[in-house]
C-alpha cells in the first residue's frame, strides 16, 4: 500500500509539471477552437480546414490589431462535460480571448451555458439548435450557421411554392435536432397552408435507423409528400430502401441538409433525384468572392470544400472582423462589437443580429439531380437567412430577460 501511495504522489507531482501554466506569448491573439474531431470527422475535418485557410489569409494580410491570429484547436471527444473543461483550460491556461466551434447541439448548449456564467465569449459555429440563441441564449453567445428553424422554414416555403400536397409524412432522428426540425417545419408550413395535415411522424434512433420498416410505415400512411431530416448513414439506408420499395415515386420529398456535400456525395449515383433540399452547391456558385474561396481551398488542401469548410472559414472571418471593430481583445468590447457586426464572406454579407445574436448567414435551396453518377443540386437559389427568422416580437418572447 505504501508504495502505491508513493507512486500516486509522484504521479501528482509529474502531472503538475505537465499541466502547469503555459508561458503566454503576447505577440499573437489566440482563439480557442473546440469541436468533435473524432465523433463526426466527415463534418468537422472540413470545418477545421476552413478555419485554417481563413487564418492563413488573415495573417498574410497582416493579422488583426497588429498581431497574428492563432488557433488552439481541441477535440471534445463528443462529450459536453469535456468541452466545458477544455473551455476553462483554453481561457485560463492558454490565454485565448474567445472560443468558437462545436458541431453537436448539446455541446454547443453546454458551452453557451458556460459562456453565460463565466462571462466569456463563445461563437457557436455549426450547432443548429434553436434554443442556443433563443430559449437559452445569453449575452456572451453568438451563432453563425443558419439554425434548424431557418433551414426548415426555407424548405417549407419552397415546398408550398411547388406543391399543393395536403397529406405529409415526416421522418427525423429521435433527438433534439430532429424534433426541432419537424416542429419548425410544421409551424411554418401550416402558416402558409393551413389545410395541410401530417399523417405520420417517424422517429428512428439516430444512426440506428431500421430503414425497411420506416419505409413500410410511411407507405402505409399514404402521404402525398415526405419531409426527411435523417442524415449520414441513416440517410443512405433510407434512400436505398425507399427507392427500392418505390416510396418516393410520385411524391414530393424534401430533405433538410440533404444537399450538403457531406451527406449527398457519399450517395453517389443513388442520390435521390427530384428531392428539394437545403445544401451547398459549391461547384455551381459563380460569385467572384466564392470562386476565390474555392480556388484557395482546393490549392491548399487538394480537396473540394464542404459546408463545414465554408462555415469554418466564415467563423474565423467573423472573429477577425469583431476584433477589428472592437479594437481590443476585451470580452465586453468584443461582445458589443459582435452585436450588429457585418462581415463580408464568400457567401455575401453576413450580419450578427443584435436582438438574438443569430447571424443572417443563408443557405441554398435546390433540387437534386444525378449527373455522371453523382448527386448535384440544380435549380438552386440562395436564401438570405434574415428572411427566415420569426418576428422580433416572437424572438423577444423566447429569449430570456436580461
Amino acid at each position, binding site marked *: *500500500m*505504501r*508504495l*502505491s*501511495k508513493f*507512486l*500516486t*504522489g509522484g*504521479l*501528482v507531482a509529474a502531472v*503538475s509539471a505537465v*499541466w502547469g*501554466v503555459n508561458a503566454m506569448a503576447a505577440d499573437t491573439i489566440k482563439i480557442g477552437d473546440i469541436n468533435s474531431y*473524432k465523433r463526426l*470527422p*466527415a463534418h468537422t475535418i472540413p470545418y477545421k480546414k476552413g478555419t485554417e485557410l481563413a487564418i492563413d489569409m488573415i495573417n498574410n494580410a497582416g493579422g488583426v490589431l497588429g498581431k497574428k491570429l492563432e488557433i488552439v484547436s481541441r*477535440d471534445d471527444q*463528443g*462529450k*459536453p*462535460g*469535456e468541452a466545458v*473543461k477544455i473551455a*476553462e*483550460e483554453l481561457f*485560463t*491556461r492558454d490565454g485565448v480571448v474567445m472560443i468558437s466551434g462545436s458541431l453537436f*447541439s*448539446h455541446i454547443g*448548449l*453546454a458551452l*453557451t*451555458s458556460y459562456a453565460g456564467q463565466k462571462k466569456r465569449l463563445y461563437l457557436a459555429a455549426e450547432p443548429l439548435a434553436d434554443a442556443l440563441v433563443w430559449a*437559452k441564449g445569453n449575452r456572451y453567445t453568438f451563432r453563425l450557421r443558419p439554425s434548424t428553424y431557418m433551414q426548415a422554414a426555407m424548405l417549407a416555403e419552397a415546398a408550398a411554392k411547388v406543391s399543393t400536397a395536403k397529406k405529409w409524412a415526416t421522418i427525423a432522428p*429521435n433527438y*433534439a*435536432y430532429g*424534433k426541432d426540425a419537424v416542429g419548425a417545419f410544421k409551424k411554418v408550413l401550416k402558416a402558409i397552408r393551413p389545410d395541410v395535415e401530417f399523417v*405520420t*411522424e417517424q*422517429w428512428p434512433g439516430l444512426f440506428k435507423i*431500421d430503414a*425497411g*420498416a420506416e419505409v*413500410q*410505415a410511411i407507405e*402505409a400512411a399514404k402521404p402525398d409528400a415526405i419531409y426527411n431530416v435523417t442524415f*449520414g*448513414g441513416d440517410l*443512405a*439506408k433510407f434512400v*436505398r*430502401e425507399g427507392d*427500392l*420499395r*418505390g416510396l418516393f415515386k410520385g411524391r414530393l420529398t424534401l430533405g433538410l441538409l440533404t444537399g450538403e456535400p*457531406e451527406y449527398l456525395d*457519399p450517395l*453517389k449515383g*443513388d442520390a435521390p433525384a427530384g428531392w428539394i433540399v437545403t445544401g451547398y452547391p459549391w461547384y455551381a456558385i459563380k460569385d467572384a468572392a466564392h470562386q476565390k474561396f474555392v480556388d484557395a481551398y482546393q490549392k491548399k488542401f487538394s480537396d473540394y470544400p464542404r459546408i463545414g469548410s465554408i462555415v469554418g472559414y466564415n467563423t474565423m472571418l467573423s472573429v477577425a472582423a469583431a476584433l477589428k471593430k472592437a479594437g481590443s481583445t476585451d470580452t465586453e468590447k468584443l461582445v458589443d462589437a459582435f452585436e450588429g457586426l457585418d462581415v463580408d464572406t464568400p457567401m455575401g454579407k453576413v450580419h450578427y443580429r443584435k436582438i438574438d445574436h443569430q447571424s443572417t448567414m443563408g443557405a441554398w435551396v435546390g433540387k437534386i439531380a444525378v449527373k455522371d453518377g453523382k448527386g448535384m443540386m440544380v435549380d438552386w437559389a440562395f436564401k438570405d437567412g434574415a428572411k427566415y427568422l420569426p418576428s422580433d416580437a416572437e424572438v423577444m418572447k423566447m429569449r430570456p430577460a436580461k
Partner: protein
Amino acid sequence: MAFYFAQLLTGMANASALFLVASGLSIIFGVTRVVNFSHGSLYMLGAYIAYSSMTVLPGIIGFWASILVAGLAVGLIGMIIEVCVLKPIYKAPELFQLVATFGVILVIQDMALLIWGPEDLFGQRAPGFEGVVEIFGERVPSYDLVLIVLAVVVLIGLWYLFTKTRVGILVRAATQDREMVSALGVNQSVLFSGVFFLGAFLAGIGGAAQLPKGSANLLMDFGILAPIFVVVVTGGMGSIWGAFVAAMLISVLQVYGIRFLPNSTLVLMFIVMAVVLVIRPWGLFGKPEAAGDHGSQGPPPKPFRQLDPSGRIIVAVIIAALTLVPLSGVNFLSVLFADIIIFCLFAASLHYILGVGGLVSFGHAAFYGGGAYVAALFVQYAGTPMELALMLAPLGAGFAALIIGWFCVRLTGVYFAMLTLACAQVLWSIVFQWDEVTGGDDGMLSIWPSAWASEPGVYYYLVLVLGVGGVLVLRAMAHTPFGYALRGTRDSALRTEAIGMNVKLIQWMAFVFAGAMAGLAGGLFVFAKGSVFPTEMEIATSFDALIMVFLGGVQSLTGPIAGASVFTLLQDWLSRFEYWRLLLGLLIIFIAILLPGGLAGAVDQVKALLGRAPKDEAAP
C-alpha cells in the same frame, strides 16, 4: 394481411444481419468466456474490407467473393487480436478482458479513419438482386430474401459444425469444462484461436453482407454493439439457436413497434431483454451458470486490508497536497482535479459493487447521471439551493438503485450486467425523450453552484471534501461487518447463505449504497459543469467507469482511484494529439497485458518481488 407479411419479411431480414454478427459474439463467449467488446469493430472492418474489395473485384463473382474475402480477413484479424492481446491475459480477473478489447476498439477506430477516410462509403447493390419481388402485391427487396437465406444457411452450418463434427464436439466440451478438455490432451490454445477466427469471420461476413443496404462508416462499431449484446443475452449466452430466435423476436417486434409506436425505437429492444431476463434469468435458451464458473482462472483474490500506519500518513500527505491545488492560481488545474476527484468517486462507487460485491454492472452511469439529473431537476423546478440539491442527488440515485437493484440482484454474471445495462437504457430514454421536463437531448442548462462556491477554486474545495469523503466512506464500508458479509457473498454465495445470511438482500443493499455514492458524484459533476445532458447516462459513460476500475485493479481498494486518475489524465493529455485514440488504445492494451492485475495489482507485484528477494537469501 399482405402488408403484415411484408413487414414480417423486413423484420426477418434485419434479424438475419443481426444474427450473423451476434452468433460470432455468442460462440466466442461460450468457449473462451471473453466478453469481446471489439466485436462491433470487427463488424465495421468487415464492411470496410468488403467495400474495398468490391471496388477491385467487380461483378457478381466479385461481390460474393468480396464478402468471403472480408470474412476471412476479419477472421484473421480476430485471431491476431486473440493471440496478441487476449492470450496473455486469460488468467486475469473475470471480465478484465473488457479493458483490452476496449483498447482494441480505440485502435481500430483510428486505423479505419486513417485508411478509409472520414466519409461514409456507400455500398453497391448486390448484382442480380438489385430490385424487388412482389409478394402478395407488396414490394420486398430481393436482397432481403438473400439475407434471410444466408442466415438460415449459417445457422444450419453452425448447428452441423457443433453437433456432427469432432471439432465442434471439442468446442462444446470446452464450453462446459475447459480444464477437463485440456487434461484430455486437446490443445486449448489452438482451440481458442480457432473459435476466435470463427467468431470474427461471422462478424466480418455480417458487416460485408449489410453493405448493399447501407454504408461502411465509422459509427458502425458502437452502433451494433448494444443490439448484438442484447440479442446474445436474450437468447442465452453461448446458444446459437438462442441468438437466432432472439434476433428474430427483437427485429420483428421492432418493425411492428415502428409501425404502431414510432417513438419506441430507442428503447424497445432493451425492454424486451429486461422482460425476458426477469422471467428467464439465463435468457431464452441459456443454461444456469454453474456456481463459481466465471471467467477467472487466476488465484482467488487476496482479502482487502486496512491501511497500515505509514499508508495512512501517505494518504494524509496526498490529501494535504490536493488542498494546495487552487493555490497554484491556475483555475484550470482546479477544474481538472475536480473532474478527477469526481471520477474517482464514481469509479470507487462502481468498485464497491464490482470489486467488493463481485457483481459487474454495465449500467452504473444510470445512477451517476441520475444523481446529476435529480440535482438539476430540483434546482430548475423547485429552486433548491445547491447545498440541498447535493444531498438530494445521492438520495434520488439511491432510490433508483433500490428499484433497479430489486430486479437485477436475482441474476448473476453477464446476465446481471446486461440487465443493469437494460435498466440504465430505459432510464436514459426517459430522460432523453421527456423533453418537457428534462429538456431531452438539449439537456438542462445553467445549474451553477451557489454564489459562495462559484469560483472554481472554492468549488474545488467542496468537491475535495465531498469527493474524498465519499471515497473514504466507501473504503470504510468495505471493512464494516456489512462489507465482510458482502465479500462473503462474492467469494462463496453458498457458504454465506449457509451461515444464515440473506445473500440477495446484502447484494441489493450494496447496490443501493453504490448507486447513491455514484449519485453524489453526479451531483458534484452537474454543478462543476453547469449543465447536464443525457450523455452522462449513456452506455459509454458506464463503460468509462468500468475501464477505470479494471485498469486500476479490481482486487484492491486503491484500484479505482488509481484507474480513474490515470485514465482521466491520459485522456486529457493525449486528446491534444490528432490520433489520440490510437495512442490511448495502444497504451491501454499495453497496460492490460503488462499489468493484468491493474495498476494497483502491479504495485503488489513489485512489492512481492522486493519482499521475496531478501527472504530467499535468508533461506539457503
